[in-house]
């Protein structure tokens, strides 16, 4: 089975600093592989440990620095890396991103069975690119997947976690599956993995390699645009610190409308 693992390099959102003008200070902002994409990788590695002939190709679209993210997942166990990199791809929203990735898969990586994505990216949190890729490839999608239970010829069975409960779903391949955090132990890079990652040749494709025009990609190909960005307002309160548990009990009781 050939798996395409879609990853995104994201800024470390836990470490954001602000400029005086309330814009995000991008210099020195560390980049990491989106944690949900790492969960997707862990699901792929789990399949690899249970079934024969599983190939994992990691794919990302981004600036040349995104190569680092690909090497990172190769060190963790992916087999190869593919980078979609072109100035014409820059500034893409989820529509243009999904369209570009789908076009690259269709023209360069036809022989695939399963496309795995993280359910969310922690920077944008749109959860749209995975379903978008599925739409442009005209294949099924299953989102909010906690676990890939079984792979049988032409199908996978997954557990999908919805607002209401857990669905056990069998989906026909090829399909896009978007992964939530699973039950796996955190994967660590191995020495062999790190060596392989250093030696790996990352395949690179630009606008001339895929069947799209420049106006269909990047900022130009994006139907949405940001008209305004501003710092999130904080709740306007002054915290009243309480010294003892008795008083805390009184506060809780008064808020819940219960008096002794």
């Amino acid at each position: 089975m050939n798996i395409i693992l879609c990853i995104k390099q994201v800024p470390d959102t836990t470490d954001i600093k602000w400029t005086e003008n309330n814009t995000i200070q991008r210099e020195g902002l560390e980049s990491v592989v989106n944690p949900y994409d790492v969960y997707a990788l862990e699901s792929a590695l789990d399949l690899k440990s249970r079934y024969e002939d599983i190939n994992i190709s990691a794919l990302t679209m981004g600036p040349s620095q995104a190569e680092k993210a690909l090497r990172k997942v190769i060190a963790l166990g992916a087999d190869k890396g593919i980078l979609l990199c072109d100035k014409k791809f820059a500034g893409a929203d989820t529509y243009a991103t999904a369209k570009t990735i789908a076009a690259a898969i269709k023209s360069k990586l036809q022989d695939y069975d399963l496309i795995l994505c993280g359910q969310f990216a922690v920077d944008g949190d749109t959860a749209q690119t995975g379903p978008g890729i599925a739409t442009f490839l005209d294949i099924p999608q299953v989102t909010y997947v906690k676990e890939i239970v079984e792979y049988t010829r032409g199908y996978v069975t997954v557990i999908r976690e919805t607002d209401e409960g857990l669905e056990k779903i069998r989906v026909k391949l090829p399909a896009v599956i978007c992964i939530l955090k699973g039950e796996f132990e955190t994967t660590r890079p191995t020495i062999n993995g790190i060596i392989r990652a250093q030696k790996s040749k990352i395949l690179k494709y630009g606008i001339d390699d895929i069947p799209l025009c420049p106006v269909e990609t990047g900022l130009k190909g994006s139907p949405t645009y940001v008209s305004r960005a501003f710092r999130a307002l904080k709740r306007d309160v002054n915290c009243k610190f309480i010294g003892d548990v008795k008083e805390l009990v009184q506060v809780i009781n008064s808020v819940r409308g219960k008096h002794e």
Partner: protein
Amino acid sequence: MSKGILVWAEVTRENYLHPVTFELAGKAVELASKMDETPVIGLLCSKPNLIGEFKDAFKHNGFDKVVYVAEEKLEEYKTDLYAQAAIDAIKTIDPEIILMGATTQGRDLAPRISMSLHTGLTADCTALDINEDGKLAATRPTFGGQLMATILSKNSPQMATVRPKVFRPNYLDSEKDTIFIKHGVDLSNKNSSIEILDFKKKLCSDINDLDSADIIVAGGKGMQSKEGFDLLRQFADKLGGSVAASRTAVELGLAPQQCQVGQTGKTVTPKLYIACGISGALQHVVGMENSEKIIAINNDKDAPIFNVADYGFVGDVFDVIPQLINSL
């Protein structure tokens, strides 16, 4: 007369309309008043014979029109069949704006629709407005909730998803003269690529409760273990409340994903939110800051959670919470 604001009527597994449908309708009526004679249109895709049960609810929530697709094959939510039915109906209705709940269903279906219609979609909005050009201005948190972005779409329909509890429904005492129109979609030759083999309703009572809970006891990394969350469960039971968790707690495996409050989890607005061992990362705060009262218990007096709390208690959760359980 413009073509309308379409609200996706989400039918749950148990065949009721998800409350977010009416929250969106309340907002749609407000947005429509800022546009030129714009009708608010509901779109319901479901198995046959459900529409009758919902008519009163649609009439009391300000819908001008409801278009419904009633097909046996829509018995259960399946992405491909629902997308086909919805897209077919939407092409006929040709709305200017489409609003859907940012539920697992909405966030699965909305991108399938927007990408198929080659239009933009803004996910998980916290504010919607109509700008001076008559366009939908959709505001959402990004960068872990630290930055707000207002997003516009160059194409039509302009689409947005909004989480439950962000807007309030506007229930009308008098019935509106809602028009109901059946839209036929032929799904007879279409088979879904997915098969739902089994469904288990969530056992953890926290899940459905979080949306409606008056009191929420939430835990973060400071709760340290699953046993720490058992303690929270006892605390919540004592208060008649529900348990929630921060993203870090979920990522550490201390609590299930469906308990997660924050940017990648739920938005909650209880009367009382008690944050225990939660540092207060902004991505968590965006999910709970509209609670009426917030109490934070944390052993770090400089934890950012105290910046959003009405009351703070600096102390060890494992010392304080058992005392609270005994005294409440």
